[in-house]
C-alpha cells in the first residue's frame, strides 16, 4: 500500500519537477522579464511541452524504459538543484485584495483536496483507462512508439500521453491522472496571475474558481484525459501573447509558439491555438512587415517543433498526417472517409440531442448525454458579453469564441473546457462592479459543483466526480476491490488471465484496455476492426447477410477487363460486393492466378470480393456517388456473357452498370443495369467468420451484453466454433477453434 502511494506521488512529482526544470532552463536562457508567479507557471507549462517532446523522441528511439525515464528525471532534478533554478530575481505580483484572496484560497484548497483524492484513486475513467493509458501501456510494453493501424485513438496526437508515459512507468495509472491534475491546478493560478497583471484580480479570482470548480473540469482533470491540459496550455499561450503584446519581448514568442504547438500535440481540437497565435501576432504587427515575418517565423518554428513529430509520425505510419481524420484528403487503408463522416455526425449529436433546447440543459445541469456539465451558474455566461466594455474583456471573449469553435463538431461538455477560462474571466469582469454579487456567485458555484450537491440535480448517469474516495486514494481500500466494481476492468483482467501473451482479442465495444497486457482490437476503431465487426454482422444479423445478386447478362464478348460502375447517388447507402462471379455459356469462369483487382474508393479491400468468402467484402465505404467502380483485370482476354455480384450490403439506391474493355484500353457498356435476384443467405456464414478470424490470427472474441451479436454468439456458439473460456454476467470471452460443420 505505502509503496504504491510513494510510487504514484514520486512518479507524478518527478514528472512535474522534470518538466519545470526543462521550462526553467528555457526561461533562464530566454532572459525574459516576467513576474515571479508567471515565471514558475510558464516554466512548468512550457516544460511540459519540452518533456513531452523529449519522451516522444525516446519512444521513437525505442528507449521507453523505466530506467531511462528515471535517469532523465534524476538528471533534470539534479540540474535544477545545481543551477539553483528555483532562485529568481523576478518581482512578485501585487497581491489580490484580502477578501478575494481568502475566497480564492478557500475554494481552491477545498477543490484541490477533492481533486487530488480523485486523481489518486485507482484510474477507471472510460477513456483514461481505455485508450489514453491503453496506448501508454502499449508503448511501455514495446519500449517505444509503434503503429496502431487498428485503433483510431492511437492515431491522435498524444502530447499529454507522452507525459503520462513518463509517470506511468513507475506510478502506473494514478500517476498519469495526477499529471493531468497538475494542469488542473495550474489553470486557475494562471488565470489569477493574468488577471493580476491586467489589474482585475477580483474578477480573476472569481473567474478562476468558476472554471476550476466546474464539474466537467474536475472530472476530466482528475482522470488521464487531456482536456484540461489543452485548456491550460491554450490559456498559457494566450497569456504569453498578452505579455508579448504589452512588453514587446519577442523572445516570449518562443514559449508562446511552443505552447501553441503543444496544444495541437495534446488534442487535435486545440489546433486553433496556432492560428490564434499567428493571427494575434499578425494583427499586432500588421504595419511592420519585417517584424511580422520575424515574429511569425519564431512562433511557427517553435510550434512546428511540437506539431511536426505527430504529423510526420502519422504520415509515416498511416499515410495521413492528420489521421484518423481528413481521410478524404489522405486516403489510406487504415481509416476511411465514409466512417469518418458517420463519426463526425455522431459527435455532433451524440445520437440523442435532436432538440437544440436540450443541449443547454445537458451542459448546464443534466450532463448524462453530453458526458459532463459545467454547472448551473453558467446560465449567466451571456453576461460575459458585458466584459466587452474593456479591451481585456474583448480579447477574452474573442479567444473564448475561437476556442469554443470545436464544440460545433463535438457537443461533449469536455469540449467546452478550453473556452471555459475565457468565459469565466469574462463573467468575472462583467460582474466586477458588483463584487458582492460576484462573490455570491462564486460561493454558489462552489457549493453547486461539490459532488454531493451535483448528485442532487444532475441526471443519474451524468459524467461527474462521485463522492470523496479517500480510502481508495490512500489504498486503504485495495485497488483490486475498488477497480473490481467496474465491468470494463474485470473484463480486461480476465483477458490477461485467460488469453496467452501475444494473442489479440477482438471486442465489439471498448473495455479498460490499459489493464490488459494484450492487443485489444475494438470494433469501430479502424477499417480493419470494422471489417471484422461487419463479418460478424454479415453472419448473424438479419438484413446484413449477403442474400442478393445483381445479375448482368449481355452478348458474349472477349474482354481484357470488366468493371462495375456506380451511376447513382445516395446519402447513406454504399456499394458492397461480397463476391463477383463470371460465366461463359452457363459455365462459371474459374478464378486464375493472373487476375488482378482494383477499385475506387477503397482499393485496399478490392480483393475481398474475390476470396470466395461471403462474409468478407469490398465496399465503397463512402455513400454512393456516380463513378465509384470495382474492376477486374484478366491478364489475357476471356469470353464472358454474364457477371453477377453477391451484394453486401444490399442497396436499393445503387444503380450499377457493367462495362468491359475489349482489349483496346477503352470502356464500353456491356449492361446498363442488373436484374436483382434474391439468391438466399449462404449457409455456414458463421463458419466462414471462424475461418476468417483464425486466418487473421484473432482467436479470442469478447462479447458484452450490449453488443448486437451477443445473443447469437451465445446461442449458436458451436456453429461459430467458439468456446467460452471466461464469463460473467453480461460478458463472455470466446476462443475460436475449428468450427463444426
Amino acid at each position: 500500500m505505502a509503496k504504491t502511494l510513494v510510487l504514484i506521488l514520486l512518479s507524478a512529482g518527478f514528472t512535474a519537477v522534470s518538466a519545470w526544470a526543462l521550462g526553467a532552463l528555457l526561461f533562464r536562457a530566454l532572459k525574459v522579464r516576467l513576474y515571479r508567479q508567471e515565471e514558475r507557471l510558464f516554466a512548468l507549462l512550457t516544460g511540459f511541452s519540452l518533456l513531452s517532446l523529449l519522451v516522444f523522441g525516446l519512444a521513437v528511439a525505442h528507449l521507453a524504459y523505466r530506467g531511462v525515464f528515471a535517469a532523465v528525471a534524476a538528471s533534470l532534478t539534479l540540474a535544477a538543484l545545481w543551477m539553483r533554478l528555483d532562485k529568481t530575481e523576478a518581482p512578485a505580483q501585487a497581491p489580490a485584495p484580502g477578501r478575494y484572496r481568502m475566497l480564492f484560497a478557500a475554494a481552491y484548497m477545498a477543490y484541490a483536496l477533492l481533486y487530488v483524492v480523485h486523481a489518486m484513486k485507482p484510474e477507471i475513467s472510460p477513456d483514461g483507462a481505455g485508450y489514453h493509458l491503453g496506448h501508454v501501456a502499449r508503448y511501455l510494453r514495446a519500449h517505444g512508439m509503434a503503429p496502431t493501424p487498428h485503433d483510431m485513438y492511437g492515431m491522435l496526437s498524444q502530447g499529454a500521453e507522452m507525459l503520462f508515459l513518463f509517470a506511468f512507468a513507475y506510478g502506473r495509472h494514478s500517476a498519469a491522472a495526477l499529471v493531468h491534475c497538475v494542469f488542473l491546478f495550474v489553470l486557475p493560478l494562471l488565470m489569477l496571475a493574468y488577471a493580476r497583471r491586467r489589474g482585475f484580480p477580483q474578477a480573476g479570482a472569481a473567474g478562476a474558481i468558476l472554471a476550476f470548480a466546474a464539474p466537467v473540469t474536475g472530472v476530466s482533470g482528475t482522470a488521464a484525459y487531456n482536456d484540461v491540459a489543452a485548456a491550460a496550455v491554450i490559456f498559457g499561450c494566450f497569456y504569453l501573447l498578452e505579455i508579448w503584446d504589452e512588453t514587446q519581448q519577442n523572445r516570449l514568442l518562443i514559449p508562446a509558439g511552443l505552447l501553441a504547438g503543444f496544444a495541437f500535440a495534446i488534442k487535435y481540437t486545440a489546433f486553433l491555438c496556432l492560428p490564434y497565435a499567428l493571427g494575434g501576432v499578425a494583427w499586432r504587427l500588421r504595419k511592420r512587415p519585417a517584424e511580422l515575418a520575424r515574429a511569425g517565423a519564431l512562433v511557427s518554428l517553435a510550434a512546428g517543433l511540437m506539431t511536426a513529430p505527430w504529423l510526420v509520425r502519422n504520415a509515416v505510419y498511416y499515410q495521413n498526417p492528420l489521421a484518423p481524420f481528413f481521410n478524404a484528403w489522405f486516403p489510406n487503408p487504415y481509416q476511411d472517409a465514409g466512417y469518418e463522416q458517420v463519426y463526425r455526425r455522431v459527435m455532433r449529436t451524440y445520437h440523442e440531442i435532436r432538440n437544440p433546447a436540450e443541449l443547454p440543459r445537458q451542459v448546464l445541469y443534466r450532463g448524462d448525454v453530453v458526458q459532463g456539465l459545467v454547472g448551473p451558474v453558467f446560465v449567466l455566461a451571456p453576461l460575459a458579453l458585458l466584459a466587452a466594455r474593456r479591451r481585456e474583456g474583448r480579447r477574452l471573449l474573442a479567444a473564448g469564441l475561437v476556442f469554443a469553435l470545436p464544440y460545433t463538431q463535438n457537443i461533449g461538455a469536455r469540449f467546452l473546457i478550453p473556452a471555459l477560462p475565457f468565459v469565466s474571466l469574462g463573467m468575472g469582469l462583467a460582474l466586477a462592479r458588483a463584487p458582492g454579487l460576484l462573490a455570491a456567485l462564486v460561493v454558489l458555484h462552489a457549493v453547486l459543483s461539490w459532488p454531493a450537491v451535483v448528485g442532487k440535480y444532475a441526471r443519474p448517469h451524468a459524467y461527474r466526480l462521485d463522492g470523496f474516495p479517500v480510502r481508495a486514494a490512500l489504498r486503504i481500500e485495495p485497488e483490486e476491490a475498488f477497480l473490481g466494481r467496474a465491468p470494463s476492468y474485470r473484463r480486461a483482467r480476465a483477458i490477461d488471465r485467460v488469453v496467452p501473451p501475444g494473442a489479440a482479442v477482438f471486442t465489439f465495444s471498448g473495455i479498460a484496455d490499459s489493464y490488459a497486457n494484450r492487443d485489444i482490437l475494438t470494433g469501430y476503431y479502424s477499417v480493419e476492426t470494422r471489417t471484422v465487426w461487419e463479418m460478424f454482422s454479415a453472419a448473424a444479423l438479419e438484413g446484413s447477410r449477403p442474400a442478393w445478386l445483381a445479375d448482368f447478362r449481355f452478348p458474349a464478348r472477349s474482354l481484357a477487363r470488366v468493371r462495375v460502375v456506380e451511376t447513382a447517388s445516395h446519402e447513406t447507402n454504399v456499394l458492397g460486393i461480397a463476391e463477383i462471379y463470371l460465366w461463359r455459356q452457363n459455365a462459371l469462369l474459374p478464378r486464375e492466378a493472373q487476375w488482378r483487382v482494383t477499385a475506387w474508393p477503397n482499393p485496399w479491400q478490392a480483393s475481398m470480393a474475390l476470396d470466395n468468402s461471403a462474409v468478407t467484402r469490398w465496399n465503397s465505404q463512402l455513400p454512393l456517388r456516380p463513378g465509384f467502380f470495382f474492376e477486374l483485370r484478366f491478364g489475357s482476354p476471356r469470353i464472358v456473357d454474364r457477371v453477377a455480384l453477391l451484394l453486401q450490403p444490399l442497396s436499393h439506391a445503387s444503380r450499377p452498370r457493367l462495362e468491359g474493355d475489349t482489349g483496346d484500353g477503352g470502356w464500353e457498356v456491356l449492361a446498363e443495369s442488373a436484374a436483382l435476384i434474391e439468391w438466399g443467405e449462404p449457409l455456414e456464414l458463421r463458419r466462414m467468420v471462424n475461418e476468417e478470424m483464425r486466418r487473421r490470427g484473432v482467436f479470442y472474441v469478447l462479447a458484452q451484453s450490449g453488443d448486437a451479436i451477443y445473443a447469437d454468439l451465445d446461442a449458436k456458439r458451436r456453429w461459430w466454433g467458439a468456446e467460452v473460456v471466461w464469463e460473467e454476467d453480461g460478458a463472455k470471452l470466446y476462443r475460436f477453434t475449428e468450427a463444426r460443420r
Partner: protein
Amino acid sequence: MNRVRAAAAVWAAAMAAGCGSRAVVSALPEQRGILPPIDFERPHHFLSMTHPHVDRFAVRDIHPAEGGAPWRWTGRNPTVRLRVSAREGLRIRADFVTAQESFAHTGPLTVRVRLNGCVAAVVKCDAEGEYRVNEEAPLECLERSGEQQLGLELDKAHRAPDGRVLGVILLRMGFTD
C-alpha cells in the same frame, strides 16, 4: 527569409506525404473453401420467386409469374425442390402473403409447412398480411441424399373465375442456419 521558405517547403512536403490517391492493384487472394459456387441451373438451398428458373425447381402449385413480379400466386400445396445436406442447425424459412383476392373468400387459413412430407410447422393465418415461417428443420425430416422438398399445405383455397386455385402469394422458401 530563404530559411523560412525552406522550412515551409519541408513542412508542406511532410503534410503532403500521404496525400492523393494511388493506384492499388491486388492479386487474387487465397481462396476460402466453404462457399459453394453459384449455379443457377441446379437446385439451391433457397428459392426466391426472383430466381430466373423458378419453374425448374417448382414441384407443384406455383403459378406463372405475372409480368415479371418478384412473387407468385400458389395453389393449395405449393412445393419446391431444394438441395441442402442434412445437418443440425438448419432452419426453414418461408415468406408468404395472404392476399385479399383469395382471403376474402377463404377466411382464416391454416398452413402446414411440410418438409419431405413431415409437418415442420403450422401457421394460423387469421388476417390478410405477410407471414414468415422461421422454424428449426427437424433433422429426421431431412433427406440424407441432400434433395429436399419443402412445401406449404393450405387447408383451403379459392377458385378464381379463370379457374386457377389461389392459395397465398409466395415470396421465398428455403433453408437458413
